């Protein structure tokens, strides 16, 4: 192990962290909104609407993210003239746009399923109660379904966030210099893979550690009642 090299590559690699975070946070934010819409569609009574959402989820979950990224970044080149005509080429020329688009569509598909599970776990009685006091469907969603569903979906979503942090490394394949991209560059230049791997791996582990902690904290904040109940149950076990 060459500690000098590790010290030297640390500042270089940490420069990639903002890039990684930018990719992750942007695609997670847009992807989440898309996912909520898709989850609504998926649960729609209209066969056509739910079918479209189901097909979207199926397509994006059964192909590798790398295919999606390449299809958008390299594949768009095949329609360059057309894209230039309608003025979209500026976007598809930019690897950042393509990486974020691919990550967004990908996470939206996975998150859609997580949210759908959450919505389906909402007790029917609660929805009935909302209806009984005359809530509009929108208000019902906003005040009852969504808050309960989100609480249910949180553990699954924290896994998805970690997966997206890992997946953002694929952006390095289309010339973006985030942590993995920089790591590869340093490895190719110095031929010391282990030192670089240790540092960049530690950076990823740190990010993931922080994410899991934030989610654990949010989970406890969002359902304090649940945690109090558990404590009570532990104190008074039988027939209480």
């Amino acid at each position, binding site marked *: 192990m060459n500690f000098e090299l590790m010290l030297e590559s640390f500042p270089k690699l940490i420069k990639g962290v903002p890039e990684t975070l930018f990719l992750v946070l942007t695609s997670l934010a847009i992807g989440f909104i898309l996912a909520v819409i898709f989850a609504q569609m998926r649960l729609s009574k209209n066969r056509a609407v739910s079918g479209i959402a189901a097909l979207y989820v199926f397509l994006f979950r*059964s192909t590798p993210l790398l295919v999606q990224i*390449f299809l958008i970044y390299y594949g768009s080149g095949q329609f360059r003239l057309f894209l230039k005509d309608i003025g979209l080429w500026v976007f598809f020329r930019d690897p950042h746009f393509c990486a974020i688009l691919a990550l967004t569509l990908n996470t939206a598909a996975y998150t859609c399923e997580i949210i759908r599970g959450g919505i389906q776990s909402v007790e029917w009685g609660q929805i009935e109660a909302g209806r009984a006091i005359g809530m509009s469907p929108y208000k019902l969603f906003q005040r009852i379904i969504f808050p309960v569903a989100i609480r249910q979906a949180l553990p699954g979503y924290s896994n998805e966030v*970690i997966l997206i942090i890992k997946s953002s490394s694929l952006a390095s394949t289309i010339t973006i210099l985030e942590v993995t991209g920089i790591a590869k560059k340093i490895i190719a230049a110095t031929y010391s893979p282990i030192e670089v791997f240790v540092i960049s791996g530690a950076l990823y582990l740190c990010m993931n550690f922080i994410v899991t902690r934030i989610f654990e904290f949010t989970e406890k904040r969002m359902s304090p009642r649940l945690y109090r109940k558990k404590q009570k149950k532990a104190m008074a076990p039988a027939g209480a």
Partner: protein
Amino acid sequence: MNFSLLIFGDAGWGDEMLMAALMTLAVSAAAYFLGIVFGSISAAFKLSRFLAFRLLADFYTTLVRGIPELLLIYLVFFGGGIFLSKIGSFFLGREGFIDLPVFVTGMVCIGFSSGAYCSEVIRGAVQAVPRGQIEAGVAIGMSPFKRFLRILLPQVMRYALPGLGNVWQLTLKHTSLISVIGLVEIMRQSAVASGSTKEPFTFYMVAGLLYLGLTTISNRGFSMVEIWANKGVRTV
């Protein structure tokens, strides 16, 4: 889009793409098998009485599940080459760089990562077997090996099947990453084909469809095995 590019034979890329799909399947199967081996060992470590083993297995799964596979591939590809070269020059007196075969690199990397996912699945399945059954085995004097073979293994296989099916899907998709080090599987072949025909969209589309086919067919296969394995089990 020009679909005549996809015909079989010398004029089109159809047969090349199909061969590449077989390569994807081969490397996925090899990595998956390795993953199950790693996963079983790590699950055994996790359930061990000894703290050191448990810590080691925990370290393995946290590490693999928190670090991008791509980074792991770069490490093994470059690191393995350097390691081999050192061995080569030390023992055989051979100078120069020895490359690790890409198939082996890919298999080891993806297997290592799917092992971490397998380990959780297998651990859960082992814990799902009621303790009383093991105790019953002890009571009638079965040896530990026989207990494993006759009580644990048949049930663990059944409990672990759905989870292992998920890991297979993950493994299959992760093998696309091996293309970055040059193994000619679906992604690499698509890159080569789109480079020479200037039709990247067509070929990445085909790549996507091939993956779709592979995942769908294998999904069907897994659910068939599941039905077979659960024959004679009463369900709700």
